[in-house]
């Protein structure tokens, strides 16, 4: 059965069909929530909220967007709600000030060591977590979930231009964080792009 058929059955009231949709998407939705929320407990709550919201909204789902994009949208809404509830929302200030957004810790700068794959992933995960929430969510949808700009705009309810600039800025912030950590990139950062301030280059 295709996803579309499952959606239609679920809309007609089939719990079995809806459960199959949950199982089809739970991994991605949970992973997204984990990246945005940062804790397993919050991620589980947010992901469950997202699926319950999907079930509630089935009657109004018109299928203009793909079911998965709609789920991403519900999931990011659920994450925002949970973060807001916990009052852990990033300060708006950090959204506009790349220098303030990233703290570079000296202890990560162990020089000239080749990282294991796991360590590399951990370091990249850390860089991702250091991004302001608005940048992180957009970048996660792009890089981890391979959504197009248009799909991200739909999922996050953002203008296309905002999506583009957040992805661009988010990438630069991550790159600067990793360059400053000293052992991520094989070659030392070139002079011209040296991250002197942990932010956008002069």
């Amino acid at each position, binding site marked *: 059965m295709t996803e579309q058929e499952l959606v239609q059955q679920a809309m007609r009231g089939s719990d079995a069909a809806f459960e199959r949709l949950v199982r089809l998407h*739970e991994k991605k939705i949970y992973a997204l929530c984990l990246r945005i929320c940062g804790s397993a407990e919050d991620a589980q709550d947010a992901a469950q909220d997202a699926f319950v919201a999907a079930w509630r909204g089935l009657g109004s789902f018109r299928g203009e967007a793909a079911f998965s994009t709609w789920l991403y949208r519900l999931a990011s809404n659920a994450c925002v709600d949970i973060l807001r509830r916990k009052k852990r929302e990033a300060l708006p200030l950090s959204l506009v000030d790349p220098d303030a957004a990233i703290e570079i810790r000296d202890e990560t700068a162990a020089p000239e060591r080749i990282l294991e794959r796991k360590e590399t992933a951990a370091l990249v995960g850390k860089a991702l977590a250091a991004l302001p929430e608005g940048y992180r969510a957009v970048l996660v949808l792009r890089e981890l979930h391979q959504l197009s700009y248009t799909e991200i705009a739909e999922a996050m309810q953002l203008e296309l231009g905002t999506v583009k600039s957040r992805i661009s800025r988010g990438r630069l912030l991550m790159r600067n964080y990793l360059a400053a950590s000293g052992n991520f990139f094989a070659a030392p950062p070139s002079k*011209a792009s040296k991250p002197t301030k942990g932010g956008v280059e002069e």
Partner: protein
Amino acid sequence: MNKACENSRLLLSGYLDSALSEPEREAVEQHLSQCSDCRALLKQYREIAAVLRTIDDEIEPPEHFAEGVMDKIRTEKRRRRRRLSAVAACAAVALVTLSLLPRIGISLSADDAKSDCSTDMAASEYAEEKALPKGNASLFGTSFDGSQTIAAGAAKSPSVAESSAPVETASVEADYARAHSVIKLYGAERRDYLIADAQELCYDADGVCIGYLLPMEKLEELTALLDQSGAAYEVLLAEDAQTFYLSYEGGEHDG
């Protein structure tokens, strides 16, 4: 960094995603062919992207995640069947446009609503945070007669807000005394408005609650608050409450 690098770096992210126009792409490639720094940066972007692509491959949701979702849904279905009978008894619907309002927090103390509403906590916290002048937040916080409820909902179309429909509440309040009703909340920012502790009745495609059950006897107070806030609203008759409810929650989906 010179001007050419600056321009190219603005476009580098879009280049990575193949999201540039043809002239932009050509300009970036032209610059990359001459600039080793920008090439190095692009290479670094690609290295990061490669790690990110697979970074969550091994993440799995907690055990019994789907069962947990389905449990919640079954619980909600049972609640909905109870609500349906309340809505069937609706005498009136108040259509309220909250898009014109500053953020509002309305608190009900119905025991049933409390135990029934899965997002109680969020709602009450929200009410605290977003409340109008303080007194309003607890306007409905006292003396609720659990046997009488109004359903309150959120309006969808801003045009209703603009139409500033006449207020009929006062003239029919006596008949409402023993009745139920529904209030519908509208507006693009409807997720910013929560009626705390009310029973959530129905939801739009974003999963945002647009209909709440409220005590009928509080309708007058609610409309007074809405008047004070400059909102437009109208009161409709029984069938419309049911039509509204059924249009969102009706049929087989309600199970």
